[in-house]
């Protein structure tokens, strides 16, 4: 414990500290807690949907509310839970795994959190005021256009997109800069943990994909608010344009969720097999290949739309071929386990579920990748089953594994293994009971997004079964919350590295100090902690000479991680919060009038200017520690 470093790097306490916090661990935890809150909210919405669908011709929920429920469920899960939770994990863990004291742009990271929070809150406030969007999370035009979606519901949806995409883009920029420039000396790209590779690849994908949906949703708002004709076929616009723009983003989006899941798998499996990952180069190349291929798949969401068959065939081939990099990863994990010593603790159990659930989901994905099969399966419950298998199997199960794995690092305590195993089995069984029958429902002809179904088609039994599965899933979540609360209240403090893992974050205290590392390590291998256990370090093993009274960090080169220069990092500031409030006013105002963009820009400009205005005291401090050559 280094009191001077602690004083330099910690956020101020109290209420003003709450709003001016920029410690990446604080921001990361805020992301995780907020995302989990949205997860529970979306789960409750789904529970209501399943209750309505448990019986045919049910009258629990009318069509208007049901449409809002499934739109909110999809929008929350995709935009307010799945992507932010992965970004939160990255923001918390990357500096720790890379041997750095901070993310690259701490204030921008704080700003991105506030924007995410405000966007999510705006959506839910709208929902409780009956202004919840009701045109689906994908919001196809012309249904979501001005003529067929009166009122402001779809506008609130479109601005939720703006909020969450802005937040996501800024977080992605932070991740890329952190990974490329703030690694500990000696951690070349070839020595980076696979977790870091996956988060880097995801961040690049976000940069390229999110602008498409921002453009699409902005054009939609313009059509609705101002009367443009982007999606008006009568005046030269095109309804299918929306689909292209949305899915060009939408398909990579599921990979923003899936690839971090792979990150968790590639961290947990080696640790619990007590050996390094098998086939590291193949794994890295597989991640990069997945990212590139993911941009060539989007039309598979549009196979039933009016598009040329030859063009669609290209997307069939691409959609099937993307299975190959994932297959490489799966085989490498199996090889790692084959040659390891297995410790079947809770994080490992959650990771093992991937092999059952995601593989099944990926294979149903191969099925719907084929144009003729998709003609029958598109927009049916078969696809609902597929998407939940891949998202839950590929991301949520590994995410729970990751939570159990890193909980000791976040909180300094362990989660109960017994409760964890109970939670795992309840979740797994509940998931299978809830979602497996949906494959059959789709094959029997049940379409998606229906608030009820006729009684004489034989769909009753499977729907009821699926709804019962939802109840079991809900109970597993209750168990998880109980486990967390019990751990925080009663569990004993745990050691620094309870899992005996090899990556750098386990060389910090649990939870880490504000300054992360007592001294920035020098890295000479993958899995530095395991390497250290094998060979005692002979040369200097940590960095000396960085200032302790000022927030100074070492910036290294992008590929070889050679020390490049010393950079000073900003102090905590309330301006990211204030700027986020100003931006929120601008975004929400522009739902109602285009003039908001003009007038509300002024406070935004002022806030951002004051954010970046150099502070005299800081400038003096930074000049004082500069060393002239």
């Amino acid at each position, binding site marked *: 414990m280094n009191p001077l470093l602690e004083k330099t790097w910690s956020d101020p306490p109290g209420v003003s500290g709450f709003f001016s916090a920029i410690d990446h661990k604080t921001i990361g935890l805020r992301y995780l807690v907020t995302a989990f809150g949205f997860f529970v909210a979306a789960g409750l919405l789904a529970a209501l949907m399943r209750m309505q669908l448990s019986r045919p011709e049910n009258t629990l929920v009318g069509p208007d509310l049901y449409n809002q429920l499934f739109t909110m469920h999809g929008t929350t899960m995709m935009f307010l839970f799945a992507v932010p939770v992965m970004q939160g994990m990255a923001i918390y863990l990357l500096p720790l795994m890379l041997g750095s004291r901070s993310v690259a742009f701490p204030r921008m990271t704080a700003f991105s959190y506030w924007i995410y929070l405000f966007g999510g809150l705006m959506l839910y406030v709208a929902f409780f005021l009956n*202004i919840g969007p009701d045109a689906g999370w994908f919001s196809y035009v012309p249904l979501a256009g001005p003529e067929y979606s009166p009122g*402001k519901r779809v506008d609130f949806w479109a601005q939720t997109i703006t909020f969450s995409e802005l937040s996501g883009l800024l977080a992605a920029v932070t991740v890329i800069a952190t990974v490329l420039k703030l690694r500990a000396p000696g951690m070349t790209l070839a020595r980076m943990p696979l977790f870091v590779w996956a988060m880097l690849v995801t961040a690049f994908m976000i940069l390229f994909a999110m602008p498409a949906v921002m453009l699409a949703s902005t054009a939609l708002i313009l059509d609705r608010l101002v*009367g443009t004709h982007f999606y008006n076929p009568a005046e030269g616009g095109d309804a299918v344009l929306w689909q292209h723009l949305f899915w060009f983003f939408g398909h990579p989006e599921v990979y923003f969720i899936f690839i971090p899941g792979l990150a968790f798998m590639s961290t947990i499996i080696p640790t619990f097999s007590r050996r390094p990952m098998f086939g590291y180069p193949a794994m890295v190349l597989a991640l990069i290949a997945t990212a590139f291929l993911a941009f060539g798949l989007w039309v598979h969401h549009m196979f039933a739309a009016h598009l040329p068959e030859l063009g669609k065939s290209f997307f069939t081939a691409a959609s099937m071929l993307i299975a190959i990099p994932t297959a490489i990863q799966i085989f490498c994990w199996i090889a790692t386990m084959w040659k390891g010593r297995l410790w079947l603790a809770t994080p490992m159990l959650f990771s093992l579920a991937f092999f059952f659930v995601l593989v099944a989901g990926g294979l149903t994905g191969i099925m719907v990748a084929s144009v003729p099969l998709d003609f029958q399966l598109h927009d049916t419950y078969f696809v609902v089953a597929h998407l939940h298998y891949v998202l839950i199997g590929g991301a949520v199960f590994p995410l729970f594994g990751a939570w159990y794995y890193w909980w000791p690092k976040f909180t300094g305590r362990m989660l109960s293994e017994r409760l964890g195993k109970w939670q795992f089995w309840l979740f797994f069984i509940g998931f299978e009971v809830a979602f497996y029958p949906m494959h059959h429902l789709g094959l029997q002809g049940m379409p998606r997004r229906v608030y009820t179904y006729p009684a004489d088609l034989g769909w009753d039994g499977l729907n009821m079964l699926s709804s019962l599965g939802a109840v079991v899933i809900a109970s597993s979540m209750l168990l998880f919350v109980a486990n967390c609360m019990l751990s925080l209240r009663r569990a004993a403090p745990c050691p620094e590295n309870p899992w005996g893992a090899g990556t750098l974050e386990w060389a910090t205290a649990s939870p880490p100090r504000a300054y992360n590392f007592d001294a920035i390590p020098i890295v000479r291998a993958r899995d530095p902690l395991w390497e250290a256990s094998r060979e005692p370090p002979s040369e200097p093993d940590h960095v000396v000479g960085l200032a302790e009274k000022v927030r100074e960090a070492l910036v290294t080169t992008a590929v070889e991680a050679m020390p490049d220069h010393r950079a000073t990092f900003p102090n905590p500031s309330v301006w990211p919060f204030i700027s986020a409030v100003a931006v929120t006013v601008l975004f929400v105002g522009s739902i109602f009038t285009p003039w908001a963009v003009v007038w509300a820009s002024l406070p935004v400009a002022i806030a951002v200017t004051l954010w970046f205005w150099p502070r005299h005291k800081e400038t003096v401090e930074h000049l004082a520690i500069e060393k002239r050559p």
Partner: protein
Amino acid sequence: MRLAALLLLVLAAGCEREARQFQVPPAQAKSLKPGYANNERNAYAMSQGKTLFRWFNCNGCHAGGGGGMGPPLMSDAWRYGNTPDDIYKSIMDGRPNGMPSFRGRIAEEQAWQLVAYVRSMSGYARQDAAPGRADALYPGDPENRRDTRN
């Protein structure tokens, strides 16, 4: 305190705008007159009114509001009054010189939806509830860009 009241007003406005009243409860069915006041703040009602304006071929005489055989509905000049009651009477009872009577042919709640839409054509409706552009050829500014002051 004032801020809270303001907030409540804004929130309540949202409720009025977004309600979708599909079924007319029997008690109201006798006379929908009280309903009209809400229609001009209800986006669904005006959107339905816009659709019905096209379906019942009001365009045949009134075009997109600019008039033809019949008088324009977008201008400030109103021959028979511009209050919702006046317009409802125009639709249901007809008027001299060619406006037919639609009583018995158009349901009352549909007529009130048309009334709200016709008023929105001149910009009387609240801007956030007025209809946007139709998925059709462009006839001029959509109703939510029109203001009585213009």
